[in-house]
Structure formats: C-alpha cells, structure tokens
C-alpha cells in the first residue's frame, strides 16, 4: 500500500508542479510585493520592505471600504436577481415541448456576447440624449425630454445599467445550470406528488427545490465569485463613476496598479480581494459539499 501511495504521489508530481507554477508562484510573488513600497512613479523611493504598511493604508482608506461596499451590493443584487430569473426561465424551458432547441439558443445568446461589447451596448441604450431607454421613458411621459435623466452622472441611477447588463448577460448561464439540474429529477416523483394531491406550487417547494439544491449552489458559487471580481463591465460602463460611486474593488486595484503604478499598495489590494473571495469559496464549498453529499430522499 505504501508503495502504491508513493507511486501515486510520483504520478501527481507534474500536475502539482504545474499548479504550483501557475497558481502559487504568482500568488506568493504578489504577497511578497505587497510587503514593499514599490511606486514606479516615485522611483527615488526604491523598493524598501515595509511590513504590513500597505495593508494598514488600505484598511484605513475610505475608498477601499466604499469599494468593498459597492462590490457586496453589486454581488448580492445581481446574483439574487439572476438566480430568481434563471430559475423561472429554467422551469419554463423545462416545461416547453415545442421548439426547445431554438428557445435554448435564444436564451443563451447574451451569454455568448463578450462582456465589453455588452457593456457598450448598454451604455448606448442608457445614453441620456441618444439612448433608447430615455426615448421610451419620454414617450411614456415618464421623463421630460428637455431635462432627461443622465443615468451615468447619478450616483444611484448609475447602478441600474450596471446591474441590468450583468443580469442580462449572465442569467443564461444560471438558466442552463438549473435546466440541467431539472432534467436530472425523476419524473416519477412528480407523478407521485400529484397523485398525493400536491399542487404545482407544492411540487415546486417540496420536490423541485430540494432536488435542485446542488445545481442552485453551483450556480450561486460561480456567480458570486464572478460578481465579486467584477471589472470589465464597470470599467466600460461607468469607469467606477460618477466620482467613485460604482467603483468595485477590482477597479480600485486596477487604478492603484496601472494608473498610479503603485505595485506594493496595489498588490496589497489584490491580496485583500483574493482573501475575501477565498473565504467565500471555502464557505461555499463546505455548504456545497454537504449539499452534494447528503443523499436526496
């Protein structure tokens, strides 16, 4: 047995090496960098070791906490809507018998569009003077044509296109995952439930949702971790503005690294973002593990 174990480790060595090289080395480097001052715009400062000073600066910065708040708000709102909408669409698609292939392709279309393109599309639609959204609102009498709402210049309204664009783009992904989950549920269970007199809602609550839990959790994990690292959508749509009202952590990190060329501080921000997503992932994996392991009754 010991020999077998040794051989098994030997076989895994290349894979472990690759993981180390690809995942651990950059991570370790970033962690090391985050303990230094390294400002390319202030080369006369050199690259001294400063311990946790960069982390102290980040945790003492209002902009960091605001960005964390924006990220949480974006994640909870967009993922929440996506799960609800995705569940609704998946059930609907599961029930339809005609033109299934066509419908599924249609639903998937937004997912196939690159995020940057999608973000541009939505920014055109929400343009204050030329956009279709304001034109429709004016047509409906909900907006004064001469004083249109400038969505992207309002700290609250700017979230609307951001979240709508994300929902539009990633709901198909959730739908697809849930649809696969639905197809795994034994039809006999519904027949049994209905012969016991359960209505459609009861069936959804007592049969569909418990059995869909693993698929729902997978969708939740993927979407949360993705949403938490949101960058491109915001970068194109609002650039984090107005002011920094829609700036997520990833964009703040980008600004520190690539606008201000503060590699030490930017690395500390990147490590903080990594820590938060890592904790989230571990938490989810525990819940998910329980969800998958527990045998459905």
């Amino acid at each position: 047995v010991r020999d077998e174990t040794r051989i098994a480790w030997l076989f895994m060595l290349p894979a472990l090496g690759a993981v180390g090289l690809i995942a651990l080395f950059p991570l370790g480097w970033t962690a090391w960098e985050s303990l230094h001052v390294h400002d390319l715009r202030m080369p006369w400062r050199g690259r001294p070791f400063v311990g946790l000073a960069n982390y102290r600066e980040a945790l003492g910065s209002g902009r960091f906490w605001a960005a964390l708040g924006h990220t949480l708000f974006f994640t909870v709102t967009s993922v929440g809507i996506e799960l609800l909408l995705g569940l609704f669409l998946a059930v609907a698609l599961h029930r339809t018998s005609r033109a299934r292939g066509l419908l599924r392709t249609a639903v998937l279309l937004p997912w196939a569009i690159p995020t940057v393109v999608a973000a541009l599309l939505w920014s055109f639609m929400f343009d204050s003077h030329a956009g279709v959204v304001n034109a429709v609102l004016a047509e409906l009498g909900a907006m004064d044509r001469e004083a249109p709402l400038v969505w992207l210049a309002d700290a609250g309204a700017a979230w609307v296109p951001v979240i709508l664009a994300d929902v539009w783009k990633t709901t198909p992904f959730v739908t697809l995952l849930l649809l696969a989950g639905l197809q795994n549920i034994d039809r006999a269970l519904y027949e049994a439930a209905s012969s016991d007199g359960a209505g459609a809602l009861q069936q959804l609550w007592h049969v569909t949702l418990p059995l869909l839990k693993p698929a729902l959790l997978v969708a939740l994990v993927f979407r949360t971790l993705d949403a938490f690292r949101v960058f491109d959508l915001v970068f194109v749509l609002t650039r984090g503005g107005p002011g920094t009202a829609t700036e997520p952590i990833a964009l703040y990190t980008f600004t520190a690294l690539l606008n201000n060329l503060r590699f030490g501080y930017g690395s500390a921000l990147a490590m903080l973002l990594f820590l938060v997503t890592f904790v989230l992932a571990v938490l989810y994996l525990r819940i998910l593990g329980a969800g998958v392991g527990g045998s459905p009754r």
Partner: protein
Amino acid sequence: MRATPYVLLVALGCGGQRAEGIVVTFPASAVGREAELLAAQLRRFSRLHPEITVELRRTPDAADQRHQLYVQWLNARAADPDILQLDVTWTAEFAAAGWILPLERFAADVTDFFPATVRANRWRGELFALPWFADVGMLYYRTDLVARAPATFAELVELAERGRGAGARFGFVWQGARYEGLVCVFLEHLAGFGGEILDGEGRVVVDAAPGIRALTFMRDAIHGSGVVPEAALNWQEEQTRYAFQNGEAVFLRNWPYAWPLMQDAAKSRVAGRFAVGLLPSAPGGSAGAALGGSQLAINANTEHPEAAWRVLRFLTAPEQMLERAAVLGQFPPRVSLYEHPELALPIPAGQVRALIEHATPRPVSPVWAELSEILQVGLHRALTRQAEPEDALSRAAADLRATLERAGLSAR
C-alpha cells in the same frame, strides 16, 4: 522593423556618408501628415549634419500607451531611444526619476519661448526639455448668436441663456467626464477665480476660497442655471465638439485641434459661424488656458547626447516651427514667431499669442498623474452632487497632501 521606410527616407538624404555616422533614435507619431512632415524635416537635418542619422521609431499616438512604453524603456535604463517626445505633464516625472538629461550643459537658450511653456519643463530649477508645440484650452463661440467672447463668467451665463432662448439646445459645453480633461477645465475656471492647485512653494491650496468658488460655479452651471448640460459629466473632447458642430451649443471649451474640423462645411453645421477667445474670468482672477502640447527631451542614458541635442535644436528652431504651424496648424511656443511675416495659422496669430500668454500649466510635479486622479474623483463627486464643493475639495486636498508627503515632495 516597422521603422524601415523612414530610415530609408532619411538615409537617402545623407548620401553615402551614413556608414561612419552616429545613429540617434526618435520614437514619434508615425501616421499622417505629421509623420511626413517630420521625415521631411529630418531629411533637411541630415543634409546639414551628414554625420548623424536619425532613425524614426513608430510609437502609439495614444498618450497613455506612449507613457507606458517610455516608463518600461527608461526604467530599464535603456540607451535607446535617444530622443523622447513628452507630454507637458511628463517632464517633471521623468526629470525627478533621473531618466532625462538636464539641458543646461548644452547652453540651451529659451529666452524666446513663452514663460509658461518653459516653466512646465523645469524641475528643481533646471531645464529638462524644449517645448515643441503648444496646445491651449480656449473658448469657442457662435458668432451668429454672440457678438464677442464674454469677459466674465456672469456674462457667459447670461449670453448662454439668451442663446438657448434663441434655439440652441445647450449653453456651454465642456469636458466633464472623470478624466484628465476635467482637471484642465477646472484649472481654467480656477485661474478665472484667481486660484491655484499648488502655490509657488508647492503647497496644496486648491481647497481655498477661489477653488470653492470655481467649483461651485461649475456645479451651479449644471444644476442651477443649467447652461451646461448634465450629460457633459460623461463627455470628453469629441462629444463636446459634436454638440457644438451640430449647432447645439452657444459656447464650447476645447483645444485648437477642433478648429479645422469644425470649419469643414461638409461635416460641420457651424463652419464659418464661430470664433475663439479667452475663457472668462471673475473679479480677482485672470482668464485661464490649460497648457498642453509636446516637448522634446534626451534620454539620460543616451550614448550620443551631443548628436541628440543637435536634433532637438534643429527641430525647435524657428524655421521648423513655422513649417509645423503652416502644415499642421500647431502653435509655435516661440514668442518672436508671432511677429514673423511667414507665420500662417488657421486662427489669427494675435489671438493665439494672447491665449498662450494666459496659458496655465498644470502643477509641475513628478507625481502629477496621481494628483490628477485624486482631483478627478473629488471634482466629479461635487459636480454630480455627491458632496458639497467645499467638502469634496477639502477631502481631495487631504489626499493630495498625503500623496505629496508619501513622495517626499511636501513643501517645507
């Protein structure tokens, strides 16, 4: 590799003596008439200095990309390229990093240059780059709606409102998106109200009374009188130009590049119906004109400082500047040329001169990019009514001071 055509062009001019010559490299804009003109001027240079060959390198036109390239090269102490074309806000950064040569050793004579253009190229009292051409922010106005450029901000608002009454959709359009352009617009308002971002000793004074008044005026122009459309808070140069050239605005703040484009009757509805002037001011201030433009500097690690200097001196000589003005419409930074009979600019020379005399450089600081980012956020917060101008500026000022402190550049 991609520089080959220009190398050939330049080499043609210097006959057979190229072999034993010195080669200096110069990354520059490689597209259109600007590149053609530069190649032609360098051919003339080679005839005068057969021992020196100038190799043009293609570089991106976008300032950010070019900056990134330069930082990579210079940070690695590369000796190549020898000559650098700098944006006006880069000189201090590169000088403080020790990446470009001080020019005093060549006995550089800058007495003929506009003081503002030279000031932007000095760091700690030493000259590090020569102005090549100047860019200034100016006020475009519709001559069919307004008789002359307004002298005061109050007058501008009044005329803008009257113009809107006469059918123009917007009163005054400027660049209000959160980017460098917004800082330039603010700088001009700030000068108009008699304020500065940093004072003569490098202290942060943007949160003093003139700054608050200037920012309050800008905010009220959007949310009070409404002469500036709220949409401008997402606009950069081009969106404001389109608004003006479509006949929608009475006033436009923009750079000189917009002039020939808007005089093109095929594309512009206001061709022949606009003029330029100084931006307005308030009592106690004087008209501001943000200074932009290009400078030439020498890589500190060059192996051929003398040859590079000859190229700099040649390209910034009156003859070459006159040619750039005539062909490209770029403003020469030499004062004496505005008396020169051959100076041919699209905009009357007297006006251009007055504009450059009012030119306001952005603070000369090695960390300007970071300072600017802080200002952009603060200004945009106030203009989108997330904070009062006073609070937004005092918070920005605190961040500016912290950044200067971190850089070891605080005023003593």
